[in-house]
């Protein structure tokens, strides 16, 4: 007769509870992490009301509330009731020197939400909180007073935003192409000097002269636009009466948050989200958007996938289908599996030594001697970073593909062979299509790993601010030698290398959120593709 306790143990209930608890804890951690990131990240886009705090000292603090914490009693023995303190985003970095300020609650006399409190988003120095006093055109007073100034400001801002776009277009596209042309001509001159290029040096000189005169014309045009851009200025006054005159060109958007309804705020919220994912960073990455980082991440992952998929699949095909199964293959397999466990920074060092210095350096001396000593491929770039990550993730693809191939029933192969197919035909027509879902699973894992990897990139081509995207309008359109920005590195850079850590904190969460979203999106694409294939080749085991 078994004791009840033993019977209870043998029933397996404890085991099931243990399993369930394991799953629950894992889920809790995952969702907790996601929730933290989502709340902190998405909260940043919301325009909260501008509060005006009057302190006992008579001073005013105006800004957006950014948090509250209770001061521990041990720190403030004189206040046993444990007063709280508020964290206020006061902006006006050019006046105050900081973006955030702690205000003890017992110092606050009154708290108001004035309807005319204005929030100016600026291209530099962060947000400004205050009231409009006057609008100037050059030195002459145009409009005076809070309400009149505010009304006059709105059209000016939209005009300067248009101008800003125009200037950016001229700078980046028109002058950019002239610069590219000049650079081409310079390189040709150089290779002419090296005795490689045939043709007339005079032609080149003429070409350079023509391009430079066009450049001069553009500069004149730009100067005119810039003057126009800075023509108007607005005199702002902060909560303590301090005045500050800023150019309207510096203002991206002016809002009266306290007057805005829910609908208006939601609209602003959406435009904020859009501008973060679609614009370039400002202010040492702590403000503006993260578009170049998104672009760099996605492009790098795509290049990596294009490289790793054929390599991994071919390697796995050879190992599983063609190689004689023996000690050698076993050793190779063990080596491949171990490769997956090598710390990623090691791959970074390898990428730097092999891809950049050995291969890139050789390419430079062979094909781009006229550019030396400035390296072209002999320095970090998106191609080398992608190749390094491909190397890092190739074991994942090999292992998954091998499993996929092993899971293709022998009957399929024999059925095909018995019909007179050769081994290659059997592979191409039956085995690989059936193993494709498994192969894609491997690719999904590889992509997820690659998108999140930062350490090797820091050695192979990622930068905190890339002047241009790896894809643009100038020949040959794809610039694989260019350095690029990456979301993972952006998190590190903004969060830990930024001069203004407090202001950058929301950016860290947003970047994290976007990185996760990018990985999920890439994976979803691959999963949809896999499910499509699975349906097509229904009955395959994976």
């Amino acid at each position, binding site marked *: 007769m078994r004791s009840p306790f033993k019977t209870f143990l043998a029933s397996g209930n404890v085991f099931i509870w243990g399993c369930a608890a394991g799953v629950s804890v894992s889920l809790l951690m995952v969702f907790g992490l996601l929730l933290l990131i989502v709340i902190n990240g998405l909260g940043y886009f919301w325009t909260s009301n501008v509060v005006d705090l009057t302190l006992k000292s008579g001073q005013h603090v105006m800004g957006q509330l950014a948090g509250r914490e209770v001061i521990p009693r041990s720190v403030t023995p004189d206040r046993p009731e444990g007063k709280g303190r508020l964290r206020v985003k006061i902006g006006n970095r050019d006046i105050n020197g900081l973006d955030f300020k702690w205000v003890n609650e017992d110092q606050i006399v009154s708290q108001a939400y004035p309807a005319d409190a204005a929030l100016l988003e600026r291209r530099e120095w962060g947000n400004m909180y205050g009231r409009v006093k006057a609008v100037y055109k050059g030195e002459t007073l145009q409009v005076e007073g809070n309400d009149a100034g505010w009304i006059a400001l709105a059209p000016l801002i939209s005009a300067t935003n248009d101008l800003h776009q125009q200037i950016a277009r001229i700078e980046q596209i028109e002058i950019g192409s002239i610069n590219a042309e000049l650079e081409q001509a310079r390189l040709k001159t150089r290779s002419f000097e090296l005795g490689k290029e045939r043709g007339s040096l005079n032609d080149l000189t003429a070409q350079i002269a023509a391009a430079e005169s066009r450049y001069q014309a553009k500069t004149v045009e730009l100067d005119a636009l810039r003057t126009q851009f800075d023509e108007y200025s607005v005199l702002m006054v902060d909560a303590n009466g301090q005045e500050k005159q800023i150019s309207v060109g510096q203002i991206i958007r002016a809002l009266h948050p306290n007057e805005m309804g829910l609908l208006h705020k939601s609209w602003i919220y959406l435009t904020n989200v859009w501008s973060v994912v679609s614009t370039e960073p400002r202010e040492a990455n702590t403000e503006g958007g993260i578009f170049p980082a998104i672009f760099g991440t996605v492009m790098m992952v795509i290049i990596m996938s294009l490289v790793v998929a054929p390599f991994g699949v071919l390697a796995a095909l050879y190992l599983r289908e063609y190689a*004689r*199964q023996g000690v050698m293959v076993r050793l190779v397999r063990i080596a491949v599996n171990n490769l997956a466990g090598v710390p990623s920074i090691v791959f970074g060092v390898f990428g730097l030594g092999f891809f950049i210095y050995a291969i890139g350096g050789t390419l430079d001396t062979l094909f781009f001697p006229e550019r030396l000593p400035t390296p072209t491929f002999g320095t970090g770039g998106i191609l080398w970073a992608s190749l390094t990550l491909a190397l890092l993730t190739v074991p994942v693809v090999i292992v998954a593909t091998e499993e996929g191939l092993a899971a293709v*029933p022998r*009957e*399929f192969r*024999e*059925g*095909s*062979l*018995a*019909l*007179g*197919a*050769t081994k290659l*035909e059997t592979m191409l*027509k*039956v085995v690989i*299509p*059936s193993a494709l879902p498994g192969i894609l699973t491997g690719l999904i894992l590889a992509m997820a790993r690659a998108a999140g990897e930062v350490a090797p990139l820091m050695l192979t081509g990622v930068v905190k601010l890339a002047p241009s995207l790896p894809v643009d309008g100038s020949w040959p359109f794809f610039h694989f030698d260019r350095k690029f920005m990456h979301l993972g590195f952006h998190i590190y850079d903004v969060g830990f290398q930024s001069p203004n850590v407090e202001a950058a904190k929301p950016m860290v969460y947003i970047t994290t959120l976007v990185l996760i979203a990018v990985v999920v999106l890439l994976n979803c694409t691959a999963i949809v593709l896999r499910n499509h294939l699975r349906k*097509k*080749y*229904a*009955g*395959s085991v994976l």
Partner: protein
Amino acid sequence: MYPSPSVTQQPSQSQPLSSQRFDVQDGHLQSPDNRSNSQAVKLALQQVNFFYGSSQALFKIDIEIMKNQVTSFIGPSGCGKSTLLRCLNRLNDLIEGARVEGAMLLDGVDINGHDVDITDLRKRVGMVFQKSNPFPKSIYENVAYGPRLHGIRNRAQLDQIVEEGLKGAGLWEEVKDRLQASAFGLSGGQQQRLCIARALAVKPDVLLMDEPCSALDPVATAKIEELLFSLKQELTVIIVTHNMQQAARVSDWTAFMYLGEMVEFGLTKQIFTNPSKKQTDDYITGRFG
């Protein structure tokens, strides 16, 4: 009682191979009138040995398979029926260390010869497997797979071949309206007949069937057995089966194999009513195996 356990495990020790072979040959020689002269030998095996690495699986097999007849291989599990069958389209070539000795003449040409194109051989010797193995493709694509491999691209021609194959396998009426549907939507018996259609589509001379009905219900089995009668008008069928009633029902000739040796080969009627070997008699009457 015969056989004693030791004898069944190691017959080569208790019974010299040469005598065994002699007996088989003897059996053939004793019944030459079983064969009418009008029948031609499609496939002749002479002294075939087969090895998996160092272990021998088939011992000096001699057999002559008649054209347009159904020949069945019977015998207990592991006796080498399937191995022998898979030698006939050289599917055993895939196995590492597999080696075959002796002559296997298909229409007088040794199929293991150096100048034999293996894909051509497999085109002439089709095979249907124990477990139905349609490819993860549509019904149409399954049947068209073989012809496509052998270079037929013309759509109308393919359509015709697919229709003929499916009709030959008695499946046409059931699937003609859903040719583009996945082959996995078919029932087990239909899948097996699809595999037969797929094999027929490359127009083989010989069809090897490796226990084609072992996973099927009686109705599906009956359909495939019926099919065999019509198939033998066109080609030569060799069927491996565990089911002796099936062998008795469908085959013209029966070979009884035991532990890698061909114990007895003759007309089905004779094997089942008046076997010349005691082992055969014991197996058929269910005393062992």
